[in-house]
């Protein structure tokens, strides 16, 4: 699906507290892409992702999707274009994994044993957990369930905020393999991460580097340059 994402003179922040400086960026390619959002703790990665997800407002500037301002878009329409995977998966729900994944199709009602749900769970290798309560499985399994839910939501853009933060080493390897597969299916993935050692062998289309000093937003293509800039800014 052809997707045009434009960030124009954007100023992010939280409760009127400004983070960094204004910046602009454009993603207009129709093929699948993986954009890694990197930067030190507190550099504004989560705030940028939450702003892109429509969970908090831009302090100034504008984000448009296919020419339509994100801030003015109806919640339901936005959910057909963008899905979001948070750092911490939900821990206090008594729904089963299958029921949570089926909710990805909201407002369409999907059964928890439907083909879409089973296929998404299969892709993430967690189909055996379909009947277990989400709060009874490990953090890593829960995170995979939330990605399966995003696959059912079937949006062209998937935003992920440090999705591997609570995963062990083998699960992280597994995780980045799934991300690469999703990129191959034509999705635009914007993923914030500190996992730079793990992504060395993953095809990353571009890096968005957020810095507190020396220019807030930089778009880079080279892995080594990203590492160098991160170290020089620390």
């Amino acid at each position: 699906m052809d997707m045009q994402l434009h960030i124009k003179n954007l100023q992010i922040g939280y409760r009127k507290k400004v983070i960094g400086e204004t910046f602009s960026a454009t993603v207009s390619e129709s093929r699948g892409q993986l954009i890694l959002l990197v930067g030190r703790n507190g550099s504004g990665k989560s705030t940028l992702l939450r702003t892109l997800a429509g969970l908090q407002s831009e302090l100034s500037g504008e984000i448009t999707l296919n020419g339509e301002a994100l801030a003015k878009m109806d919640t339901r329409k936005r959910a057909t274009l963008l899905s979001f995977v948070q750092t911490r998966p939900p821990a206090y729900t008594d729904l089963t994994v299958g029921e949570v994944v089926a909710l990805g199709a909201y407002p369409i009602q999907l059964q928890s044993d439907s083909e879409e749900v089973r296929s998404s769970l299969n892709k993430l290798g967690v189909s055996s957990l379909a009947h277990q309560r989400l709060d009874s499985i490990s953090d890593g399994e829960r995170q995979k369930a939330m990605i399966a839910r995003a696959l059912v939501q079937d949006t062209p853009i998937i935003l992920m905020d440090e999705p591997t933060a609570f995963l062990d080493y083998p699960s992280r390897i597994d995780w980045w393999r799934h991300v690469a597969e999703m990129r191959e299916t034509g999705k635009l993935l914007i993923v914030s991460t500190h996992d730079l050692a793990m992504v060395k062998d993953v095809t990353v289309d571009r890096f968005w580097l957020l810095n507190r000093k020396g220019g807030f937003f930089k778009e880079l293509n080279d892995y080594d340059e990203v590492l160098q800039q991160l170290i020089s800014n620390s």
Partner: protein
Amino acid sequence: MSRKPFVWIVLLILLITLIALELFLGSVQLPVREVWQSLTAPGDNLTSDIIVRQARLPRALTALSAGGGLALCGLLMQRFFQNPLAGPSVLGITSGSSLGVALIILLGGVTFGSYSIVLGAFTGAMVVLSVILLFAGMRRSPVTLLIFGLMIGYVVSAAVTLLQAGTTREALRSFVFWGMGSFADLSAGQTLIITVTMAGCTLIAFTMHRQLDLWSLGESYARTMGLRHRSFRFGLLILTGILTATITAYCGPIAFIGLAVPHLARGLWQQGRHAVLIPAVVLSGMVIGLACDLISRLPGTEGGLPLNAVTSFFGAPVVIAIILRGRKVF
């Protein structure tokens, strides 16, 4: 509908049995045949008609409607605040209603049954709900919210005490009696208001079952999955406010049913989908409401036990169990 159909059957049998006990038991002994006749073909025996149709039947309907309604309020509030300790009585919502009623009765000299009491109870409930909502946005911890709710309850109680100090003896007596909670002495019209409000709110809540499922994943997930959160929040708060206020206005500030019953139903049905949870919680609330009412009028208790004492004996251990079990509650 559920993985445990026998739970539905047992609860339904229990409900019918408790309704029957409400109708057949009482200080005046009536033969089963007479009670049945008064219900189905009144006119032959005026005394039993009055006892059954004007006292026992409204009381049974009030007990089951108030029990079901408060339990539904508890479920909605626990889900809304993502807090297992939320409930109309614990978070001070019923205290807010009490203050509204106190202002109307103790200052305005209005008698019970008046619609202005419902309005007072609703305004009080909505004011406290709004304050709690504001605080919940700033502090996410369940225990902190609980303590805040308790403090609101104390402040409201202090205000009510001040009002009591400057009122007439009759108004004070009337208010204290109301505060003990009771499903008795309501007219057919008042019973009808509670029953219709409960049934209407249950139906509206049921239409929101998928939104409630989404909300159970947390506000951020719900919003990015397409939930129109502003109308959802507004609808849920108004629903909870109307239901709590209507029941509290007529039956008094009843403790613990709203908090404890949703946990009881979750334990029995082992379900998270609100399409099942809503009817399950309402049915369980009806059963608990009737059971508490029957216990409150056990033989040998002259004039009956205060309803709130009975519901507290049932509900307080549930709260302790929730605190001891910590995170595993939801």
